[in-house]
């Protein structure tokens, strides 16, 4: 990969409950030739929740976020799948007719959405640069058995991502993790939902959904679950003990971020990757 500059949109979760996701991303980026320029003044995307109260406010906020990245003349990069989906859908709404109307509101802050910028995710960047990724691997993860959990908003709705990848038979995550040398175990729950977005109103359903994912990974012999979505990681890691207890399961499984797995293959330490910050002990994976 050529040295590539990105307007980095961390999303709220990376500054707090999934701070190890940001740490590990910032640790692997320079090795992979990626330079991250965090967007100054980025706001919450609404996380598909604020949209249910005030869709126009959420659209304005995301038009502003994209416009901030446009002003940096760099593609916009996020590691959060929900941010990715929300921003992508906002861009589609703007490009399909809302642009002029929304720009009237952005003008209140002397901003303008142009519509000339790409929005992408860490998973996509790695997938598009597999040769670079392979060339940087110093510690192939052949002894690590991993279950790959996509997370809904990494792949669905397919049409929102312009059918960039099949949502019934996606391949990007497998290709990226194969490049790291890890052993991918069969995992029937790999395309399922962890339930994160309904963890407050539908807690019983959500604990079942999350617990089944952990249980299925264990049944297939995985040492850990890996996900490109920090919200899925948070859901499956932070609440794991509680949910497993509630479901009468004693299984405990490390849940790690894609950026952490990449970092392991690049030879980075637990501390550099924030593996010591995961709630379910992930330090033994190194």
């Amino acid at each position, binding site marked *: 990969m050529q040295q590539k500059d990105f307007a980095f949109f961390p999303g*709220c979760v990376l*500054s*707090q*409950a999934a*701070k*190890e996701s940001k740490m590990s991303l910032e640790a692997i980026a320079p090795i992979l030739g990626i330079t991250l320029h965090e967007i*100054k*003044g980025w*706001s*919450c995307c*609404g*996380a*598909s*929740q*604020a*949209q*249910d*109260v*005030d869709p*126009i*406010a*959420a*659209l*304005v*906020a995301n038009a*502003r976020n994209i416009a901030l990245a446009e002003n940096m003349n760099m593609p916009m990069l996020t590691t959060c799948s929900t941010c990715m*989906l929300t921003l992508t859908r906002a861009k589609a709404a703007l490009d399909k007719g809302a642009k002029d*109307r*929304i720009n*009237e*509101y952005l003008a*209140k*802050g*002397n*901003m303008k959405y142009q519509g000339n910028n790409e929005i992408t995710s860490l998973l996509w960047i790695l997938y598009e640069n597999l040769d670079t990724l392979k060339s940087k691997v110093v510690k192939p993860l052949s002894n690590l058995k991993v279950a790959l959990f996509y997370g*809904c908003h990494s792949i*669905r*709705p*397919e*049409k929102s991502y312009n059918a960039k990848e*099949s*949502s019934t*038979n996606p391949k990007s995550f497998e290709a990226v993790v194969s490049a790291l040398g890890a052993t991918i175990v069969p995992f029937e729950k790999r395309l399922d*939902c962890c*339930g*994160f*977005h*309904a963890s*407050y*109103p*539908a807690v019983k*359903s*959500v604990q*079942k*959904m999350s617990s089944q994912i952990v249980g299925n990974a264990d049944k297939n012999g995985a040492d850990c679950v890996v996900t490109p979505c920090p919200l899925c990681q948070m859901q499956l890691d*932070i*609440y794991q003990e*509680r949910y497993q207890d509630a479901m009468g399961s004693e299984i405990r499984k490390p849940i790690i971020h894609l950026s952490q797995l990449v970092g392991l293959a690049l030879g980075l330490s637990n501390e550099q990757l924030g593996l010591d*910050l995961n*709630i379910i002990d992930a330090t033994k994976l190194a």
Partner: protein
Amino acid sequence: MKILIDRFNGVDKFVQAYDLSIDEVKGKTLLALLQHIKRTQDISLNFTSACRMAICGACGVRVNGHSYLACDTKMDDLLKEYDNPESLKISPLANFKVLSDLVVDWEPSIENLRKIKPTITPKEAFSDKKGCVQTQAEVDAIKKQWDCILCGCCASECNKLEADSSDYMEPFVFTHAFRAAYDSRSKDALKHLKPSIANGLWMCVHCQECADRCPKGISAADDIAMLRVMAMKKGLKDGTGPAHAEAFLKDLEDTGRLNEIYLALRSEGVLANTTKIDIAYNLMKAGKMNPLHIFGDEEIEGHEDLVKMIEAARAANKE
């Protein structure tokens, strides 16, 4: 290649394999393939179908765990989708009771459809003489949802329904509630909205499976979101779902970013959060939750302008 079909004879469930040459598979629709198997190999195989032109919705089934409308799905596309496999697995729709082989019981779903009263009562302004005239924009607002053919593909893949259907309805039911509630001719949107709320409107997990699997391109997830917007506008805000959604908007307006402590407190209240002290403790111990955030966060750069933009949008879009 092998076509594996989940069978059910009323007593036993089993998988039956049918060997077909690739020429027997290619060039057919999924429905034509099922008919071919029934005609040439196994007359006992049961499935439902009628129109063969994606109008009646009778032939929804799953292939490799994903739902498809059989008459509207080309086998060539499926072979491509699944990388020319040696076998494909055909199953009945999930989240329905199986009656026989690929035939499922629709009666509970129709009962749910009845709950949201999918027909409209016209406003007083309309009469036999005046009719129920709508503008093009008013028709456009709901016309996509009229395309729903009740095939059940969305319900089959719904992750919430799979976890627990006792407090949640099929996604297409919410689509029909949306269509009725947002119909400009309707006298009373609440008649459709209230039963939607009572039957899980705020429990959608946002998995987006319904949006992906609908053969008509309808997003029940979006329809659920729009019903939520209507609920909030009409002041129907009881429960953790509305409180959780509002918490995000409040943080956006207050500082521009999410405050995780406020999010928890605003979503569930102080009392309920005392049961999550262990989670909060673990997060604080790992340095992933800052207790000082209870005093609030700094505003993002340009927050004042963001608020101005949002206020301008609201003023312009005020009903």
